[in-house]
């Protein structure tokens, strides 16, 4: 990736990328289910490649979780959410919050694919004074709704967004992606309780259930199971899916859930798509060597 811009330069709309994203969205809207799935899978593969470029160039990042969440992000931004990258502050846009903010590289790749800014700027991920911080910052990055990084913050903010839409009688929806490990933070359950109390049927929480946290498997750290039962007990409608099946994700994100918030438990594989990273706890934030980077790209195929 080459760019002539200064790392600290503000991010600007990428008209070409925006145009391409709009074309994909129009095609998507007219396509049959099989074509939709192949389009989402293609975009997800591209995002995974982008994540590897970004993290390899920066020399840091959280590659395992970036790869596990790639199909979720792609399905939302390529197929589900109502957005206008030309107007990131449009009042009635859908809101997306990446509560697992350490997977910023995957989010930035997704936003660049929508044209919020040029993919060339991904070369500045986590560079000194770059707007593309190691964790998302809404004041620097168009398309980012709130600042995340400390775990357990995204769902309360998402509940606030969904409450705002409910109070205003507006149709926009809020999607929050949570890491499974971060469900150990109690603030999530404060928010979960209140979301059900308010009957926020405009809110979807998506759990990237890759079963690994920074140091160990979740179940060896602080047992999350039975996870679906926990959400149900808090008053949520639960939808469990294969988190790498974009057709299943699309259905889970678009089927109405009147009177209740929805929790989508997306069963995923940390490091998905790169055999030697899959299910390896060390790939939480290990950076691939040059040889590993090339091997990973080869596995993911050509762009």
């Amino acid at each position, binding site marked *: 990736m080459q760019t002539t811009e200064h790392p600290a330069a503000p991010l600007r709309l990428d008209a070409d990328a925006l145009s391409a994203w709009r074309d994909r969205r129009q095609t998507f809207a007219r396509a049959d289910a099989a074509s939709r799935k192949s389009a989402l899978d293609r975009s997800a593969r591209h995002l995974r490649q982008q994540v590897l470029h970004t993290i390899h160039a920066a020399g840091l990042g959280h590659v395992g979780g970036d790869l596990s969440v790639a199909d979720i992000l792609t399905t939302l931004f390529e197929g589900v959410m109502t957005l206008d990258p030309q107007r990131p502050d449009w009042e009635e846009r859908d809101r997306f919050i990446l509560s697992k903010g350490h997977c910023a590289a995957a989010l930035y790749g997704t936003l660049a694919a929508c044209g919020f800014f040029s993919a060339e700027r991904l070369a500045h991920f986590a560079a000194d004074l770059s707007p593309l911080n190691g964790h998302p910052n809404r004041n620097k990055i168009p398309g980012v709704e*709130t600042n995340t990084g400390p775990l357990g913050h995204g769902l309360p903010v998402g509940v606030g967004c969904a409450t705002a839409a409910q109070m205003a009688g507006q149709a926009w929806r809020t999607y929050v992606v949570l890491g499974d490990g971060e469900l150990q933070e109690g603030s999530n359950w404060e928010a979960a309780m*209140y979301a059900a109390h308010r009957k926020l049927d405009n809110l979807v929480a998506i759990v990237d259930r890759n079963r690994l946290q920074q140091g160990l498997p979740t179940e060896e750290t602080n047992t999350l199971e039975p996870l679906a039962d926990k959400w149900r007990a808090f008053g949520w409608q639960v939808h469990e899916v294969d988190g790498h099946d974009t057709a299943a994700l699309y259905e889970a994100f678009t089927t109405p859930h009147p009177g209740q918030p929805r929790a989508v438990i997306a069963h995923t594989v940390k490091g998905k798509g790169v055999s030697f990273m899959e299910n390896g706890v060390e790939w939480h934030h290990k950076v691939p060597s040059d040889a590993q980077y090339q091997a990973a790209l080869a596995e993911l195929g050509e762009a």
Partner: protein
Amino acid sequence: MSKADNSVGFDCRQAFADELTALAAADPRIVAVCNDSVGSSNLGGFRKAYPDRVINVGIAEQNMVGVAAGLANGGYKPFVCAASPFLTGRALEQIKADIVYAGFPVVLCGMSPGMAYGELGPTHHSIEDLAWMRATGDLTIAVPADPAQTRAVLRFAAASEKPIFLRVGRHKVPAVMPDDTAFTPGHAHVLREGSDVTLLAIGTMVSRALAAADHLAAEGVQARVINACSVKPLDEALVLTAARQTRGLVTVEEGVLHGGLGSAVAELLAQQHPTPMRMLGVDRLAPTGSTNFLLAHFGLTDDGIARAARELLAGTAR
């Protein structure tokens, strides 16, 4: 010497509630966010007028502050109303990340701050709030001294595009500010001129500093009294002027000495105009007791302030 009688005067929560309800009438974006604190925040009237604009998340402060950020994202103007020890302590990281760092114009209203809940013990004292909030990024901090100033801070906050933390006092205070007083960040008010010593106070301590100045005047000592409501940003020019024109400063606050108003003044003067100081406040977790007992225990009375001024002057040559 007469002691200032703090069993009479005004509970700033009533002014807070009345002004917030009036502001909400003019601005449909205004909502109150609380943690089962409708009663303790005196929001009954607001709820009666605008039942759908009270977001009561229950006893869940982290969620409360996060929800306020989300409401701001969605176009509302949230006033978070909760007992100050729990708002600032329990939700400190949410205040840092979701409000200040994210830059949402949320109004954080710390109710019953200082040692207003004296009898309930150190868990319910909010003496650390100013230190915590001062350390947290670009957050305006206001400690109004009376009902009129409480109203003024609210009017400012309603129009502000930045986050603000204010203390809303429960302990009764006399009126010390004119009804039409305005709040401007970084602006302090000289309530009494004097050339010997400066008494710089906030909140419940302002009326006591004025009473202390009366005592000192009877002894021939002219004390300047400053209401430093804007703790952050501090009115640096006014503090420096006082440092140059008087022989020293006494800071007075109902809070810890480590990081509050006195610290802010000391940080400024140490670097720009070293000046003799006495800092009155709380230097440990406070014991349990009535508010008036605790204030006296830490010398936060008119007598205590006058004594500190005398000691300061005794130690400085003119």
